[in-house]
């Protein structure tokens, strides 16, 4: 079942709905967690990954000696991943991701317009234009979203010129798109509020097929009949022909009805002469149907029916049309029509057009079709939403159904003007994407809804319902590697908690892969999350450092400005240089020193390490020979090192301790008076520094300071004598 497998790792959105308002649900949904392990499970472990992906480890009980099967398999447990919410049984995950990506630009545009307008509306003169224009923006947004939800419509009355084809079965519409359009009709499209019933008629024409999943529909009847069509010899003798036609008529699919009427046998040339009267009645009905007045600005090109934009015109036309039907109904020709099937069938259609409840009830399959037929034939002058709810209740009573379709609850919520129900239905039936985006439509619908949805609630941790649903949607986005990058757009539209969640999301991104790391840092930069980016860089620095890539480690720690760790690294380098003077080991560090040295402040003044190496080398030469020149050279290096402000204080003592041999040079004093004084001052500074709290004790013998001081004093005496 490929269609099912696509959403297989997702709890489909009928299942786990975040944050419903629904206190009435009494049964807890329990889902199986298939693991395929033979032995019983002894223990579970759980862990959340990013977003709402939950990882579960299942551990089998230890295989006992009596159960060789489990032991042989060698499998003692399973790790599985469950993604909660975000799927749709009708739509593939790939298509859902396309929708997710596609809805970003319209969403972002609407948010930026909102913030622009909120700035403008602070100026009192602009306040009124805000409300007038806003729904137009929302409508534009809604149209953009609609275009993502599916290809061009393939309504059942889109007939191609195959006389045998009554219903076109093209691309299947989705409930998601149907739900979105329904909300657009009621909330966003203020312009069409005047002909709301006609919009519903069109909507049902587009989406009637969706309801076939739970019950028989007119669409399914049409499809079934079409399959039979080739086998039917005399169409007008078939009861189903008349039944299907009156059904299609009851919901206003005029084109289909007229096309079907013209399949009537009396149109055939060889029969026309002896069935003239019969054919006249059929054609009369066909003409009447094709001239049915509709209260709407226009019909899609080529559609039957006559459109009247203004109410008075429509009323006049409607009354005229009705009187024509009544006239036809009372016509004496009926008695002369000797084809019983034709007579009864046509008569029934006339009753439908005359708005006889009983006939409409018979012709329609479920409440929504009956509902729409009411608008067409019983209450053609219905305006606005006021009486629509009661009518819906009545239709549901007349056409009770054992199973409720997922669109029904939404429909009832909308016409009942109950924002909470609409929201709950959106959430339960269509999932986080729908709620996060549809709140824009809802809030455009009424001020009341706007207050309800934007009101900040303590119970929700101080956020509004709108924000809550955006956070929930961002969680869904976060749980997939291909969509997490768009989560920040939704999170930053959340005033209170979006940034907090974004921080957590970014913190949980792996630093192992450089491209991902750069992407993370870029997101941090975009949203000014400096502390997060420095943490990410710190993690990356430590990761590389520990994994033997010292250069990359130092680079990222420098980017993170992590002085603590860099100082530790400097210390390690110093120790390593101090331990061994061999060029080989030093070469390993040289690149790192280079890297550290360029930003000496952070790296603890590591440029001195070069000088230190030179100094160590001259000391090494001293140990082999006893040349005073070499000693003088080493002393020069020492003075340079001690004078250089970039030499960190904590290295002073080890440097001086290493130089004891120079300070005690027996041939002559190597330091002049001022040089000796310099070193004595440094030593004094060090003694003071030892008293401060953060002093790092060098790893030297305890008598180090005193022996250095003694050597310096001796040297000073000799230098004074020399001078």
């Amino acid at each position, binding site marked *: 079942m490929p269609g099912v*497998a696509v959403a*297989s*790792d997702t*709890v*489909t959105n009928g*299942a*786990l709905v975040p*944050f419903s*308002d629904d206190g009435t649900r009494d049964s807890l949904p*329990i*889902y*199986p*967690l*298939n*693991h395929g*392990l033979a032995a019983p499970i002894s223990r*579970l*472990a*759980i862990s*959340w990954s*990013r977003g*709402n992906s939950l*990882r*579960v*480890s299942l*551990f089998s009980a230890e295989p006992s000696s009596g159960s060789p099967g489990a032991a042989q398999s*060698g*499998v*003692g*447990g*399973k*790790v*599985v*991943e*469950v*993604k*909660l919410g975000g*799927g749709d*049984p009708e739509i593939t995950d790939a298509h859902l991701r396309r929708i997710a990506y596609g809805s970003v630009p319209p969403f972002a545009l609407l948010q930026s317009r909102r913030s622009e307008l909120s700035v403008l509306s602070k100026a009192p003169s602009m306040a009124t234009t805000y409300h007038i224009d806003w729904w137009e923006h929302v409508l534009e947004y809604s149209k953009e979203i609609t275009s993502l939800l599916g290809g061009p419509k393939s309504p059942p009355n889109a007939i191609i010129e195959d006389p045998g084809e009554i219903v076109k079965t093209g691309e299947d519409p989705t409930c998601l798109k149907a739900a979105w359009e329904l909300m657009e009709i009621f909330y966003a499209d203020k312009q069409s509020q005047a002909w709301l019933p006609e919009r519903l008629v069109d909507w049902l024409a587009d989406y009637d097929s969706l309801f076939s999943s739970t019950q028989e529909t007119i669409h399914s009847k049409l499809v079934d009949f079409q399959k039979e069509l080739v086998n039917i010899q005399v169409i007008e003798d078939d009861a189903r022909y008349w039944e299907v036609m009156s059904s299609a008529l009851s919901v206003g699919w005029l084109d289909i009805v007229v096309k079907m009427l013209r399949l009537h046998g009396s149109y055939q040339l060889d029969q026309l002469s002896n069935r003239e009267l019969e054919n006249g009645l059929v054609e009369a009905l066909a003409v009447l149907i094709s001239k049915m007045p509709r209260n709407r600005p226009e019909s899609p090109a080529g559609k039957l029916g006559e459109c009247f934009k203004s109410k008075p015109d429509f009323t006049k036309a409607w009354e005229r049309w009705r009187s024509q039907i009544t006239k036809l109904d009372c016509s004496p020709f009926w008695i002369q029509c000797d084809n019983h099937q034709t007579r009864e069938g046509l008569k029934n259609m006339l009753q439908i057009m005359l708005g006889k409840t009983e006939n409409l009830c018979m012709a329609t399959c479920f409440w929504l079709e009956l509902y729409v037929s009411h608008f067409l034939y019983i209450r053609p002058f219905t305006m606005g939403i006021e009486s629509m709810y009661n009518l819906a209740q009545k239709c549901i009573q007349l056409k009770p159904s054992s199973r409720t379709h997922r669109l029904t609850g939404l429909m009832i919520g909308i016409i009942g003007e109950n924002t909470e129900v609409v929201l709950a239905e959106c959430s339960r039936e269509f999932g986080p994407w729908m709620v996060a985006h549809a709140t824009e439509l809802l809030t455009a619908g009424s001020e009341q809804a706007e207050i309800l949805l934007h009101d900040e*609630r*303590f*119970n929700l941790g*101080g956020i509004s319902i709108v924000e*809550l649903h955006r*956070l929930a949607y961002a*969680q869904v986005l976060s*749980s997939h590697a291909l969509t997490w990058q768009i989560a920040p757009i939704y999170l930053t539209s959340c005033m209170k908690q979006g940034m*907090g969640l974004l921080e*957590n999301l970014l*913190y*949980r991104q792996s*630093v*192992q892969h450089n491209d991902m790391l750069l992407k993370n840092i870029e997101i941090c930069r975009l949203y000014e999350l400096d*502390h997060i980016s420095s943490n990410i860089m*710190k993690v990356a620095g*430590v990761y590389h450092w*520990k*994994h*033997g890539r010292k250069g990359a480690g130092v680079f990222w720690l420098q980017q993170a400005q992590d002085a603590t760790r860099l100082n*530790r690294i400097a210390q390690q380098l110093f120790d390593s240089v101090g331990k061994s003077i061999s060029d080989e080991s030093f070469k390993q560090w040289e690149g790192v020193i280079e890297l550290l040295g360029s930003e000496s402040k952070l790296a603890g003044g590591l440029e001195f390490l070069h000088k230190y190496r030179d100094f160590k080398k001259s000391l090494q030469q001293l140990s082999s020979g006893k040349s005073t020149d070499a000693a003088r050279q080493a002393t020069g290096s020492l003075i340079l090192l001690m004078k250089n402000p970039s030499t960190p204080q904590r290295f002073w003592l080890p440097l001086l301790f290493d130089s004891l041999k120079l300070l005690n040079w027996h041939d002559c004093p190597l330091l002049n008076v001022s040089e000796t004084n310099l070193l004595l001052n440094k030593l004094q500074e060090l003694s003071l520094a030892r008293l401060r709290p953060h002093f790092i004790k060098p790893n030297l013998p305890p008598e180090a300071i005193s022996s250095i001081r003694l050597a310096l004093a001796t040297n000073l005496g000799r230098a004074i004598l020399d001078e």
Partner: protein
Amino acid sequence: MQGVGEMAKELLSLDNGTTCSSWNYSSSRLATASSDGTLSIFNFLHPSSSSSSPRSTFKSKVHDGNIAKVVWVPPEYGDAVACVTADGIVSLWEEVAEDSQPLQWKACKTFRSSSTKVLDVQFASFNTLKMVAAYSDGNVRVYELLDPLELKNWQLQAEFQNVVESVSAFGKALCLSASISWNPQKGVSQESSFIIGFNSNTSELNSSKVWEFDQAHQRWLPVAELELPEDKGDQVYAVAWAPNIGRPYETIAVATHKGLAIWNLGLNPDRNGRLPVERVALLSGHEGMVWQMEWDMSGMTLATTGHDGMVRLWQSNLNGVWHQQAAFEPTS
């Protein structure tokens, strides 16, 4: 319901005898350990994509006995895990490449005590890395890492019992289990705090308490006790501190034999330095021992697992009423 039967995607099969597992910060590495003392590490290349298959990067016997728990160290300190054995020994293992040697997992520290066992450890990274360990004699120890690049050098920062009044005297405590959860806040400005509860024979020790580090006096203070008078001494199975992405209060889950309690913890202390607490829900579900509780990254959904073998999810509705949202039942 469509597709629910295959909703769980298998990521990995585990060896016989595996007893515990733990994911790292980015859910890209999994550590598992087993009853024969083997520690295994698996890499998942792209954590959320469906195509990658895990690669085993380490598998070795690191203890003689049963490893009961494995915990990752925060990533600011490298890739490292702590193994807690059933005998109460903690060992730290770290993945490093030293001196041009290949990358390998190395032992870097062992915490053991002859008289008492470690029951749980948890790490938190504030300015330094801290490790809280709960011991079978009811003691809590906080260790601090001295050098951020060396997981060898630890210093005992504090040792105390999980009691509010230090004067209260009780007999020798015997604790079966303990549960620790750090405040997951990552800001450096935040005082470090954690919650701990015990499952022991000593009622004073059991109740879960929030401990906060008092910078001024360099000591740990109990700032809240999450227990109602009528539940005094109830053994605590598990605690979990929810991430806070902007709520004006903290949320903490505490599981006892009476059920799963959700507590809200105020942010502003009273004159005695105590934080206001309110139990906002007591929920029943697992009917018995709760093994583990985990909050999602928004701190809005709690996942729990326990003795009934189920995974359960809990959420608050729009009116702030907590309820069980869904459950998962393992089936073969």
